[in-house]
């Protein structure tokens, strides 16, 4: 909360001329860019997410069980890693262009990865699993009776899908899309490597290209304002579109076996999406890593980066949980206006994209505790501001599942509240906390903009190394850290998927 306030104050006290210049030159373009990127990603996400979920919930064919798992894997690739593999794939004279020219003739020109199309493609392939996952669980718990009624009254397949099925899964779709858009708007890694100007990237450029941070703060304020409007819109939309099961007749959809030819078609489609979003990039990373290793690029320094990333992420996750416990507990058990304010304040970190959070922490630290500037604490603080909300969300829902009766029973037996917490509450919520810890840990491993801006001397993280090497187009040197991050993230993605399965 405090960091956000600082950004607001800096921006508000900015010279009017700065504001005027930004409004007339940068803001409209950045708004348009961010908006068109979001819309592009939304459209592709909808098409990919719904079609994949539809295929996998309505049909069975050989291998359809495996796809449920494989389609989660794209979430384990950080956006900047996907972006940098795509710059290599799509560059002029690159493999995709060769393929395209052999199909469409030698004169055919492919779009540049450094464009709106490139950015949309990369970010859509990076975020479609959000929409897919939510669409899938909605389609699974879907009451087929509605569709049957439509069929009986003479509606064709397409009409049924568009008029009945789609509206029914709309709330889940919208939730997935909001997640994806929030991700796109706050993404720094992919847009910076693809040099596509969005608000987040512009804030970073202002911070690193100019001798004062006023313009950066102003742009941040506009971005944060947009994010708040967006979040409010999401709440409103969710409240408006709820569907309820009204009758007792509920039948789950049963996946139908399909014609071998259709199965082949489906498999081809799934394979294409999977290859683009995960398969090909990872194969490239492995190939480059082998090349880097044989060229002797893997030195002792690399282990240092690994240690920096691992230790900092672990510490941040631990601190986030420790700080989060009282906040989450208070939010669930003792609701007062003060506690609500406190918790909602912590959630503002959510709407602060990386560079903005970094800027806020930077200003805050240099004003209040300048001794800490340039140490690893600043980075820790920035991570906390950024990722505490994610931890809070997980922990809050864990607390909510726990009935207060258990604690009350313990208290009525004369045990003090602290002991009650450690002996009764804590053992029961441990599982939920562990997954919150893992979530924060992985987010920190992938974090780029704040690490880039705030790292102390000699404290490069894996993400920073990837970005520095990739922005020089040194594909081989960037590959080993990238591959490592993907490998660490895969089990986590699968773990979350398993939890998702248990709940549905």
């Amino acid at each position, binding site marked *: 909360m405090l960091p956000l306030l600082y950004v607001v104050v800096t921006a508000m006290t900015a010279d009017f001329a700065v504001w005027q*210049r930004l409004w007339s*030159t*940068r803001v409209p*373009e950045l708004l348009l860019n961010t908006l068109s990127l979001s819309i592009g990603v939304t459209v592709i996400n909808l098409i990919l997410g719904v079609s994949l979920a539809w295929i996998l919930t309505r049909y069975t064919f050989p291998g359809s069980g495996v796809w449920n798992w494989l389609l989660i894997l794209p979430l384990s690739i950080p956006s900047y890693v996907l972006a940098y593999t795509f710059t290599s794939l799509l560059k*002029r*004279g690159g493999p995709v262009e060769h393929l395209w020219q052999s199909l469409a003739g030698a004169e055919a020109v492919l779009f*540049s990865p*450094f*464009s709106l199309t490139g950015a949309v493609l990369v970010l859509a392939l990076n975020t479609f699993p959000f929409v897919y996952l939510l669409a899938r669980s909605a389609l699974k718990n879907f009451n087929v009776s509605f569709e049957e009624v439509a069929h009986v009254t003479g509606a064709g397949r397409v009409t049924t899908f568009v008029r009945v099925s789609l509206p029914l899964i709309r709330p889940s779709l919208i939730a997935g899309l909001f997640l994806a858009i929030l991700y796109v708007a706050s993404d720094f890694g992919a847009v910076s490597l693809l*040099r596509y*100007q969005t608000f987040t990237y512009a804030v970073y*450029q202002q*911070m*690193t*290209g*100019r*001798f*004062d*941070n006023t313009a950066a703060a102003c742009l941040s304020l506009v971005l944060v304002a947009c994010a708040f409007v967006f979040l409010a819109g999401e709440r409103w939309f969710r409240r408006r579109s709820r569907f309820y099961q009204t009758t007792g007749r509920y039948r789950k959809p049963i996946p139908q076996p399909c014609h071998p030819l259709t199965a082949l078609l489906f498999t081809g489609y799934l394979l294409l999406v999977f290859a683009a979003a995960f398969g090909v990039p990872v194969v490239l990373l492995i190939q480059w890593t082998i090349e880097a290793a044989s060229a002797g690029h893997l030195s002792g320094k690399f282990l240092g980066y690994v240690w920096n990333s691992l*230790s*900092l992420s*672990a*510490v941040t996750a*631990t*601190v986030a949980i420790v700080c989060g416990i009282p906040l989450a507990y208070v939010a669930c058990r003792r609701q007062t206006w003060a506690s609500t304010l406190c918790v909602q304040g912590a959630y503002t970190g959510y709407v602060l994209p990386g560079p903005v959070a970094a800027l806020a922490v*930077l200003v805050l630290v*240099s004003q209040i505790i*300048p*001794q800490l*500037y*340039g*140490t*690893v604490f600043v980075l820790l603080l920035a991570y906390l501001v950024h990722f505490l909300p994610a931890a809070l969300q997980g922990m809050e829902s864990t607390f909510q599942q726990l009935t207060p009766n258990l604690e009350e029973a313990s208290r009525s037996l004369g045990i003090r509240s602290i002991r009650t917490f*450690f*002996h009764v509450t*804590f*053992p029961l919520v*441990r599982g939920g906390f562990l997954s919150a810890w893992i979530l924060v840990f992985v987010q920190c491993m992938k974090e780029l903009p704040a690490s*880039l*801006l705030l*790292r*102390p*001397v*000699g*404290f490069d993280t894996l993400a920073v190394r990837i970005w*520095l090497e990739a*922005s*020089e*187009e*040194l594909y081989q040197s960037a590959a080993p850290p990238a591959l490592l991050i993907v490998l660490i993230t895969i089990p986590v993605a699968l773990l979350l998927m398993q939890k998702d399965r248990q709940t549905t």
Partner: protein
Amino acid sequence: MRPRIRDTRLVIPHFLLLAAMLAAPSVCFADETLVVYSGRAERLIQPVLDAFQAESGVNVQMLTADSTALVNRLQMEGDRTPADVLITNDAGSLERARELRLLQPATIPGIEETIPPPFRAPDNSWIGLSGRIWVIVYNTSLVNPDDLTSILDLADPKWKGTVAIPSAGSVYLQTGVSVIRAVKGEETTIRFLRGVKDNAGSFVYGKNRQIVAAVARGEVAVGLVNHYYITRHLAKHPDAPIAPLLTDQEDNGMGSILNAAGVGMTAYTKHRAQAQALIQFLISPKGQRLFADVNKEYPLNPQVTAAPELVPLENFRVANVPLSHLAQLRDPTMTVIEDVGLR
């Protein structure tokens, strides 16, 4: 009592880790380590620092970021900065740091004879190390070099879709535009930038290396880069159809755009001796040779000759804008660049 045992098992390792982490920064800055903030690509400066470390035995640690960002960082850190030396890829950032009193004069014996006065601050707060000129790179099979006599010609509509330019964040572009503004005035500069922006279209690159590669592949006919990226590319691919073009050489012309990478000792360093030893090494013939041979830049120490494939520095005209002026030109130049809409 079993729950308690399980609790402590979970909590203790985490706190141990936490404690270890908190101790980590103090280990990082062992007393003898010289901390260098560097705005240059790691690839270009690491070999030089390695050579210094081998010769002097002083342990050097480097933080790489944009030159401007490093000056901002030094300013924020004030007297608590861990940095001893600032190396940047343009003299403007160094002069700016000097104005902000973030640098202090270095006492280097023989500096007067080693680096000519235009390439260092009057009080030696910063010292130029290597010169680079912002030139046109052209594809020899696509372009007749006689068609271009000035950088400003690139704004001509006949080059539409064939020009590659650096992105607005590039310090080289900022320097180039600053010099054009200082010599030709605001209006000409804006007209030039508008034209170049239209001609470049989507051929806007983050790195000089990419521009040279694009020209070599014939995707574009011409590009704007620092000269040594061309030389380095040719050293690797001798058959590449590219060449540098020195423009604006006519008698009343602007002259070529020269900038210098340089070094300064921070105002609050606790390692004066080692910092000055590093600077001394960087301007010594040995250090300068590395800039000349490895990087193909112009060594600023006249005792060291530039790589043979370069036109000697004294054989062409350079724009008459002192390096120290680049600092005050920077922010207004950024505003012009942004107003025109370069990205």
